[in-house]
């Protein structure tokens, strides 16, 4: 009996494995002193508007007009040779700028990644980075196609996923989820009598 008692309390005292506990969400912290951010600040003093770190990933906000310069510096002097991803987020109705254009780049020397974020108002042009990384060509075309963000002196800024005659930019928040009438033949939803969605039965 005794060792059985001693076994159970000892089990309680041992820390429960992490997947037993309630998950602890990562918190965003200010990352001005982060080495990667300090490197950029050293090169281009007033390029860093804000820097946050969330779940170990550093995001540096950069003014829109200096993005070409910062990307060139990142690639040439900070050795970020590999642009992993370029995308955009539509924060509709945000006063300081509707769109976020995100550049996510990787450095082979010490395998670190950095995210540059540019705030853009609707209809404002941002410089294209195709001259810095050739891979950005199609990514910028997709961002233009999906969000309507224009990239200055991009080699051939045209739609890539939707067809030429398509009007509207699907991934904008004001684009209806059911899609717009493009004149294409769509098979109508025909339900048998009494069938079909029940009024007010949303999928939320």
């Amino acid at each position, binding site marked *: 009996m005794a060792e059985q008692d001693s076994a159970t309390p000892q089990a309680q005292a041992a820390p429960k494995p*992490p*997947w037993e506990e309630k998950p602890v969400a990562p918190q965003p912290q200010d990352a001005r002193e982060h080495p990667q951010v300090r490197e950029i600040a050293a090169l281009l003093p007033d390029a860093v508007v804000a820097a946050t770190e969330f779940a170990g990933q550093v995001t540096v906000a950069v003014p829109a007009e200096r993005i070409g310069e910062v990307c060139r510096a990142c690639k040439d002097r900070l050795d970020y040779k590999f642009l992993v991803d370029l995308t955009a987020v539509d924060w509709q109705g945000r006063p300081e700028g509707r769109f976020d254009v995100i550049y*996510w780049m990787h450095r082979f020397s010490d395998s670190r990644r950095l995210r540059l974020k540019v705030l853009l108002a609707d209809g404002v042009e941002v410089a294209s980075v195709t001259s810095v990384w050739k891979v950005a060509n199609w990514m910028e075309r997709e961002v233009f196609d999906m969000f309507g963000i224009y990239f200055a002196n991009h080699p051939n800024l045209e739609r890539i996923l939707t067809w030429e005659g398509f009007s509207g930019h699907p*991934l904008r928040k004001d684009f209806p989820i059911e899609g717009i009438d493009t004149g294409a033949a769509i098979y109508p939803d025909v339900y048998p009598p009494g069938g079909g969605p029940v009024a007010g039965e949303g999928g939320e």
Partner: protein
Amino acid sequence: MGNLEPVKPFPDSEEMEISFGPQHPATHGVLRVLVRLDGERIIEAKPIIGYLHRGTEKIFERETYNGTIPHTDRMDYTAAATNNQGLVGTVERLLGVTVPPRAAYIRMILAELQRIASHIIWLGTHALDIGAQSPFFYTFQERETILDLYEEYCGARLTLNCMRVGGQPFDLPEGWTGRCRAFVDQLPARIAEWEALLTNNRIWKKRTIGVGVISAADAIEWGLTGPPLRGSGVKWDIRKVFPYDHYDEVEFEIPTGASGDTYDRYLVRMEEMRQSVRIVTQCLERLPDGPVMAKVPKVIKPPKGEIYFSVEGPKGELGYYAVSDGSTNPYRLHVRPACFVNLQALDVMSRGLLVADLIAVIGTLDIVLGEIDR
């Protein structure tokens, strides 16, 4: 491809423009390539995509986090397990959940089996495009066994939907590990047979050596990842650089090619299949027991924030960029598909080749249009 002026062999070369696809038998889906030819030589190959665009990222914005998983199956429809692994990994890092080791090991087994299955499809269709008909049937016979293992585990063969945020929905059925072990043990012999058919076959070598060459610097410049990057000699694999799911506890090597042509990528993928076999064997031996699901609330509401997480898919780095505004639906869920970026290099790789080589280059890039068009 404005920033690549088309190379004009001689001033008065009259060009012939052929539209290649989208219903062409060798374009692995609905890809259309506008090829400007001078006789047989390719002056410029401009891929046109978008025929399979279903607006997946817009649909993501109205789904719950667990509801997005079936949609990821349909992006790279030949590698559903690694798609799920990517998405689920992203949301878990957003929530700060650590997955129980048994679930992580099951995920690694499913992902590596998926890598073998995806490389099998690549080998079958690639050899078929270059003319060798039989490997297609031998390879797909092995793939049937993998699909049966998937069907036994999660009920579906292709669109698996076999992972949930926080772990695995169900545990392995009994006897599954034995059947999986039996399959994985006999696979290297099968791979050796396929290699006997192709690797030192002079016709295969003539059709693949020196075709679609891309140097290491260009590969990085064009953002290639996965076998196309490793084929050019860059030793880079997400499973080693940013290990996820206990990949750091498993030994395997990363095969790299030398000259970055189709033959090297072929060797890299064949070697990767063997390495996957090694990984699955080690995972089966070390499979810990315990729960398969972490403590995750029924309704998943991650905190406000943004995160990028990527897995090493069979085609390359498959990344998910999730932006959450605290609600049950992702505010923005962007997918960084490997095939979309790899396909962009098609023009620079197929410059100056013949029409027949365009097929070989499309095959060696191993593109899947579901992932490109999303």
